[in-house]
């Protein structure tokens, strides 16, 4: 079983991932900005929750937090 983390919801929908966490992060930064462990943990938590709770394929959770580099 698997969960995928990515940007671009349409790809997850087309490819029928079993479970997908969609982030609003630019290409090359799906987990979030560098050194932003809070966001990375949030994304991991969303993925692990999907692993546990999804009951059928194409389960998608979309996180809406914008990409904000740590300053």
């Amino acid at each position, binding site marked *: 079983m698997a969960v995928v983390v990515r940007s671009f919801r349409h790809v997850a929908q087309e490819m029928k991932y079993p479970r997908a966490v969609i982030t609003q992060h630019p*290409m*090359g930064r799906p987990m979030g900005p560098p050194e932003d462990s809070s966001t990375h943990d949030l994304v991991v938590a969303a993925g692990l929750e999907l692993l546990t709770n999804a009951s059928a394929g194409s389960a998608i959770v979309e996180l809406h937090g914008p990409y904000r580099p740590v300053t």
Partner: protein
Amino acid sequence: MLIPMRESFEDFKNSFSYGSRSDLSFKFLKALSDDQAAEFLARLLHEVGEMYDGAGPEALLDLAFEWQVKAYTPKPGAERPYVYEEGPFEPLTHQLEETTVGLVTSSGHFDPSDPPGDGRAGTAQESIIDRIDEFLRNAPELSTVDLSIDPPHLEVVHPGYDTRSASRDPEVTFPARALQRAANRGGIGSLASTGYSFVGACSQGRLRKELDHWIDVWKGAGIEALFLVPV
């Protein structure tokens, strides 16, 4: 590389995609029409102007992401090669707190002490970008990464995306530490001690031929669930 003194706007916008001004964060400009690209650039410059008066970078970041999504969203009627009617799904067979999770990414990370054979080790990202066509024809190579490695020692080289952020912090595309924190909190049974990464910009047909073997490797490592990060 020589930059022509006269070039069309189309040539200019396309030059960010493996061209004279290659910047993989903005290669999406090639997928925009001239009018769309012009609108994006005009709005980009407007937001830069706002920053003269103290505006932060948030609007710029949001604008760039908005247009990246717009560029990559399929046009109506466009041929799409990877559209499926159904997909795989298996429920967890036991509690996640008792499950070994493995990390697999297409981010192109590797341990420099165990370099891949595709020429990326010791090669600058800019040089690898020039070899994108070669990578797209070839089979991918799966790198194994002992997750006890000190993160700054991980290398990332990939011809398909802007690796600047991933170079600064591997967690951006290879979230081993975040998964380990989840394991430490009891959220998962364990994180497999080896992570895996490959260059997703590869022959997709050849990738499919590798997958059965890769799945055997992951099962052999005791992995019961995969945390996948395609980049």
